[in-house]
C-alpha cells in the first residue's frame, strides 16, 4: 500500500516542528508495517502524552492516545483481551522512563507480546525542554541552564535487565536499519524494545549547540556504531546500534491461556 494509505491525511501537515525526528520514526514504522503486510485492522497503536505520542493521531490503524507514562498499562489491557492483535507502543523518553519507568520495567519482566518504541530525544519536547532521565550529565536543558547533573539511563541495559525478549537500538539517521529492527521487533513473540535516537532540534538541539536537525543527525551518524562492525578490543566511546537481545521466553498471554486451560480441566 502507499504511505498515504497508512495516515490520516486530514491531520497533515503534522504538528511536529521542522526536522523533528519523530516524523522519521513514524515514516520508518509505516514502512515496517507495509513491508510486513500486516492488515491495518490487526494493529493497535497505543501512546501516552508527549510530542512523540502524537503519532497515534497520524497513523491510520486502531489507535489509543492515553495518559502520560501509562501507555503500556493500556496496551497490556488491549493485548490481554485481544491477544491476536499486534500492539505497538511508541513512547517518548520521559513518557517511557520517568513517569512510565515502573510500567516499563514490569512490562519487560512480564514479557507480554508488545512492541515498545522509545523515541529518545533526550528531553521533554512537549512541555518546553526540561531534562529527562535520558538527557545525561553535562547536557543543558531549560531546567538545567548550568548543566544537568543526573546521569542517563541506558535503555538497552535497563530493558535487558528487566527481562525484555527483544532489545535493539537505532537512530533516525540509520533509516533502513531502523525499519529492519522495527520489523524484527514486531515479529518477535514477547516484549520488544526498540530505542530510536530521535532529534528535537527545537529544544535539545538549541540547548546543546546543535542548531539544526541535520547537525543532530550528523551526530547520530558520527557517534554511533553498528554492533556488527565492532573489531576485537574496540574501546571507542560510541553509542552502539543493532540487536542486543533476541530470546524466546514464555510469553504472558500464552501462559495465561495455558493456566485457563488447565484450570478448566480442574487441574491446579
Amino acid at each position, binding site marked *: 500500500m*502507499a*504511505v498515504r494509505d497508512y495516515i490520516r491525511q486530514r491531520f497533515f501537515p503534522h504538528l511536529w516542528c521542522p526536522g523533528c525526528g519523530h516524523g522519521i520514526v513514524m515514516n520508518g514504522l509505516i514502512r515496517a508495517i507495509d513491508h510486513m503486510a500486516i492488515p491495518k485492522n490487526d494493529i493497535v497503536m497505543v501512546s501516552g502524552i508527549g510530542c512523540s505520542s502524537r503519532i497515534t493521531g497520524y497513523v491510520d490503524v486502531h489507535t489509543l492516545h492515553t495518559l502520560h507514562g501509562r501507555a503500556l498499562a493500556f496496551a497490556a489491557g488491549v493485548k490481554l483481551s485481544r491477544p491476536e492483535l499486534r500492539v505497538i507502543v511508541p513512547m517518548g523518553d520521559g513518557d517511557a522512563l520517568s513517569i512510565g519507568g515502573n510500567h516499563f520495567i514490569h512490562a519487560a519482566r512480564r514479557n507480554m507480546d508488545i512492541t515498545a518504541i522509545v523515541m529518545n530525544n533526550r528531553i521533554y519536547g512537549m512541555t518546553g525542554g526540561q531534562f529527562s532521565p535520558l538527557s545525561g550529565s553535562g547536557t543543558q536543558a531549560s531546567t538545567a541552564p548550568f548543566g544537568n547533573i543526573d546521569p542517563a539511563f541506558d535503555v538497552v541495559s535497563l530493558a535487558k535487565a528487566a527481562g525484555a525478549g527483544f532489545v535493539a537500538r537505532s537512530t533516525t539517521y540509520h533509516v533502513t536499519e531502523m525499519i529492519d529492527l522495527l520489523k524484527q521487533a514486531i515479529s518477535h513473540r514477547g516484549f520488544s524494545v526498540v530505542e530510536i535516537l530521535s532529534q528535537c532540534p527545537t529544544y535539545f538541539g538549541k540547548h546543546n549547540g546543535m542548531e539544526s536537525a541535520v547537525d543532530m543527525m550528523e551526530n547520530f551518524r558520527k557517534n554511533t556504531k553498528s554492533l556488527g562492525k565492532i573489531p576485537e578490543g574496540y574501546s571507542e566511546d560510541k553509542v552502539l546500534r543493532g540487536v542486543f537481545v533476541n530470546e524466546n521466553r514464555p510469553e504472558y498471554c500464552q501462559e495465561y491461556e495455558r493456566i485457563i486451560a488447565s484450570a478448566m480441566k480442574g487441574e491446579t
Partner: protein
Amino acid sequence: MKKILKDIRINKAWCKGCGICVHFCPGKVLEMDENDKANARYPELCICCMMCELRCPDLAIEVISDDESTDEVSS
C-alpha cells in the same frame, strides 16, 4: 537491477524546509527553493536510493522509479 527514475514528487504543502533530504542526498539532486521548500534540481543525478523519502519527517517526498513493483519500498 538498476533503477530508473520516473519522478521525484515533493508535496510543498507538507514540506517544512528542514533540509534533511538536501543535506544527505548522495547525488546532490536536491536543493531548497526560494520558499525554503525542497526542490528536485538535478533529477538526472538521482540514483533512486530512496533515502530522501525515508528520512523525510513530513512524508513530503516520494521517489518514483521504474521497478516500483519490485522495489523494497512501496509507495
